């Protein structure tokens, strides 16, 4: 994305402020713990947390956990998005099915799906697939509702025009519905990234032998707050990386859109 000057402030300056804000937060945390405003036992020590992270990576003990969590997250993200896209397109284009299924979809969406984690553990075992299943149920609905909405909001004029130009049903799908739904899919993917992580970490938390969620659970069991926070920090960083990847693909695929919203939050 071109780093253009916006409203008199350069991208470098914005980055500088961001880094400063991050450092300030860490310093505040460290200081408050140091002067005992925040009890060390419950809030940890940022220096210890960073050291813990460093040790995980230098000794390499983190890699099998990280690999598991990332694999689960990616799988639930990809499977959830793909199924949400397909079902969303299907239901949006067959209104009768959509009407019949409507209460069931609403019910499935409004029930607290994390409750399924123990059931998935029974069905799919304690390996990665129970976590993937949980992540998919979370990701699916976000993408599904967005695609469903996106297809319905296709401009009727564009649709009429393309139909009059002689497009078949398959061509309408390829030329109108899919590209139109794409922008809606991408706006949902940013939420989906976070939910995919929720699925895998909560799944691991409830029963697993590996993964960041497992690591956090173990550390909590011995009141090792530094490791818990290190785990959370690590998850945040990877969620951000995945979100950035989505943004990058989004910018490439949605070049046709007037750049309005892209500048504000995702820059």
């Amino acid at each position: 994305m071109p780093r253009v000057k916006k409203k008199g402030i350069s991208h470098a300056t914005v980055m500088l402020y961001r880094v400063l804000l991050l450092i300030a937060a860490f310093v505040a945390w460290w200081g408050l713990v140091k002067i005992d405003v925040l009890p060390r036992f419950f809030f940890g020590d940022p220096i210890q947390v960073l050291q813990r992270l460093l040790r995980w990576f230098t000794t390499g003990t983190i890699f099998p956990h990280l690999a598991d969590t990332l694999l689960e997250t990616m799988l639930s993200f990809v499977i959830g998005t793909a199924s949400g896209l397909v079902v969303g397109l299907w239901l949006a284009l067959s209104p009768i099915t959509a009407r019949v299924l409507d209460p069931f979809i609403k019910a499935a969406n409004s029930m607290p799906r994390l409750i399924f984690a123990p059931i998935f553990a029974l069905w799919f075992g304690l390996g990665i697939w129970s976590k993937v299943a949980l992540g998919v149920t979370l990701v699916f609905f976000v993408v599904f509702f967005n695609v469903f909405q996106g297809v319905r909001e296709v401009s009727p004029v564009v649709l009429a025009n393309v139909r009059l130009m002689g497009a078949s049903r398959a061509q309408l799908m390829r030329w109108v519905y899919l590209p139109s739904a794409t922008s809606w899919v991408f706006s949902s993917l940013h939420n989906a990234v976070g939910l995919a992580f929720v699925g895998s970490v909560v799944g691991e938390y409830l029963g697993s032998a590996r993964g960041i969620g497992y690591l956090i659970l173990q550390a909590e069991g011995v009141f090792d707050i530094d490791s818990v926070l290190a785990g959370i920090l690590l998850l945040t960083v990877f969620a951000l990386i995945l979100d950035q990847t989505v943004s990058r693909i989004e910018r490439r695929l949605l070049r046709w859109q007037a750049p309005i919203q892209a500048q504000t939050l995702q820059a």
Partner: protein
Amino acid sequence: MTTASYSTRSPPRVEAPAAPAVRFDKVSCRFGGHDGAAYTAVADVDLDIAPGEFVAVVGPTGCGKSTLLNVASGLLEPSSGQLSVFGHRLVGLNRQAAYLFQADALMPWCTGVDNIAAGLQFRGIPRAQAQEEARGWLARVGLRAYGDRYPHQMSGGMRKRVALAQALILDPPILLMDEPFSALDIQTRQMMEDLLLKLWSANRKSVIFVTHDLEEAISMADRVVVLSAGPGTHPVAEFAIDLPRPREVSEIRLTPEFVRLHADLWQVLKQEVLRSHAHAEG
């Protein structure tokens, strides 16, 4: 094109092929209103458009002009009556017609060239060949250098040019236009009108050009049909426009014949506009 004068409801002209390009036969369209009461947008419309004829349809705003085009394109089925295209009753979409909408109808996710080429690709022409032909049309509408822009990167006038090329590349015998230039500023608008006339003279299609602008109607058309105020819109008068072609829209408006036609037409249209206002004010 002959400029034979027409009286209202004239029979098809002798030298034209037997079937008119578009024939409205007692077409009525009713819609369910908000309060459940049916609203009759157009009632008992009889109208023939000969092959190669440029017909402008004028009427007060909101009188159901667009409804007629929607019927002609097959997007809307009339509640009663029927529409024939070259003598055949229209079922489904009218594949012989291209439609230029008032609103933007370009695919925003396709570049100008891709938008123009799309129709050919729908017909099974390979992408490369379709694109090449689209580039030719891009040049004809004066946008040679802008084909790779997306619609949001173009001005309103440029988008209309692309839309015109998109319609004409399929070489449809019928062109339906719904106030296509009404959103443009006056200079751009006259340029677009001249461009349309130039392209139309080179390859005469039947045109139904809906507008509320009397000057636009007279300066472009062979015949102007005046519609009554709604509800129950129907043609109330027709004027043959026997101004010589080729025409230059900005200049023809100054000729005495034009001024006379304008005055005659306005006499009729004014009644309908007043009636439409009276109806709106209840």
